């Protein structure tokens, strides 16, 4: 059963499959030295603009929003913007324990990914992008990364609010799935030390981190930024928090009925994509 092939020889040969050229853009995948190893998926247009986007993934909506986030990355790249979708340590295919994921570790990973993109000459300026709590990560990263901007879809800037909305959605999913017994997050944590929420593991550490996390008002983001929400009232709420941070903030509402407990759907993402691409072209490409 023993094969003479060595892992080093095979690994060297396999690297030729890391990049694919298709549709005037290069898709590239790599493990970045962030944390124990962070999976990054890069979309590099043939004639790229100077602006690149770091896509900060959603939290508990991984199953429902990941496809939309990646589709958004493809739309960006087809419009000439470099995009990098990353899976922070402890999430997706990256190394690290899911139990150790924190909001701050997601922000740090986004910043490290931006540094990598600049060092690799993929782009000259960075826009951090995220949806829901990923939007808050994008804002927090932009606050710490000089010269960068953010684009946030339906951001939730308080960890406790986000947790409340995710729990509501989980409860509805339990009712729809006729789950016979529904334990609250607190009961699960009390009994077992961990809980599940929308298919994700929530430990006491993750719970405490979310409950205690709020977007800081510290550093300003001077570059033109965007907040896009489903309806006017959530836009007013989000803009109230983000405008003091980003004086050059474009605000946009999709004018849809917002069901906060159901989150941001693929339909919402499809409607938001061209608006965001147009905003990037108008605000950053020039």
């Amino acid at each position, binding site marked *: 059963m023993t*094969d003479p092939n060595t892992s080093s020889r095979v690994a060297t040969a396999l690297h030729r499959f890391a990049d694919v050229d298709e549709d005037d853009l290069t898709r590239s995948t790599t493990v970045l030295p962030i944390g124990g190893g962070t999976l990054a998926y890069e979309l590099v247009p043939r004639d790229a603009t100077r602006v690149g986007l770091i896509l900060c993934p959603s939290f508990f909506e991984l199953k429902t929003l990941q496809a939309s986030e990646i589709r958004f990355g493809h739309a960006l790249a087809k419009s000439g913007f470099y995009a990098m979708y990353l899976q922070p340590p402890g999430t997706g295919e990256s190394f690290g324990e899911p139990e150790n994921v924190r909001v701050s570790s997601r922000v740090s990973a986004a910043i490290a990914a931006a540094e990598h993109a600049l060092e690799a000459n993929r782009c000259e300026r960075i826009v951090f992008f995220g949806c829901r709590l990923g939007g808050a990560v994008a804002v927090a990263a932009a606050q710490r990364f000089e010269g960068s901007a953010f684009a946030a879809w339906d951001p939730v800037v308080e960890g406790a609010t986000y947790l409340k909305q995710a729990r509501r959605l989980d409860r509805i999913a339990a009712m729809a799935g006729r789950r016979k017994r529904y334990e609250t997050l607190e009961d699960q944590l009390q009994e077992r030390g961990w809980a599940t929420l929308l298919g994700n*593991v929530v430990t006491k550490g993750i719970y405490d981190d979310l409950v205690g996390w709020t977007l800081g008002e510290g550093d300003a983001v001077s570059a033109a930024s965007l907040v896009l929400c489903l309806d006017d009232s959530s836009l007013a709420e989000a803009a109230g928090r983000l405008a003091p941070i980003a004086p050059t903030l474009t605000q946009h509402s999709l004018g849809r009925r917002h069901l906060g407990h159901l989150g941001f759907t693929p339909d919402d993402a499809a409607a938001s994509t061209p608006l965001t691409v147009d905003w990037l072209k108008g605000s950053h490409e020039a």
Partner: protein
Amino acid sequence: MSALEIPLFVPTSAGRVFGIVSLPDDGSPLIGPGVVLLPGGRAGAGVLPLFQSIARRLAEHGQPAFRFDYPGSGLSAGETAVPRSQLRALVQELCDWFVGETGVEELAVAGRCGGARLALAMPRVDARVRVCVGAVPFFDLGGWSLRSKLAELDAKGPRLARRLIQAPRADRPQEGSRDRKALEAELVEDLRTAAAAATTALIFGEHDVLRTRFHDLISAHGLQDVEQQIEIVVLPEARLHGLPNVDHERSLGAEIEARLRSPAVQRG
């Protein structure tokens, strides 16, 4: 020794498939069988953490492992899923690629849920498969479909179910419903071949309805000889749809891993 992971795109007839090959990071010779991990449903492999830890631990002991996102999911190409009837050929194509790149001569395949059903089919289509592990296998014998479930839920709350599942349905190819007899006959043949040609194990949850379905199938077709050749493992809390649960996932992972591990490593 620890694991080196190489993310890559495999060119296939269904477009580029995103996958990760796990290898030992010390340059040591690879030990067979090579491991192919088949996720359940159509979710990207990264959604559930179960297979990552299995692949990494096996690689740490010298066995190469390969996991991937099905076309239309995760980072693989395509907006729509590959029809189920074409999945076996696609997996065989991916197995060919994996064998060609790593030089392993034999394969061990493991899957979960729908991936487990696919794993059970592999000994019939690929003679290199020597080990076959099905974790909480989903035996689709008709009479159940997401579409009918959605219709049922929609009747209770308009559009609620559709919004909850949030999957674009209109552009997903719908296969003609195959009759129960054909599905059952296929499963029986797959079980016979897997039992005869590979070291096969099935892992069920204690209260899993599919465990009952499996035993009904054995009785109905007089497959007691086949049942004796298959190792049946019963875990108290194993679940079909794997809402990740730290303890259950770890115990399920340990059971799968133990059966995939190379005899050479177990002896060593």
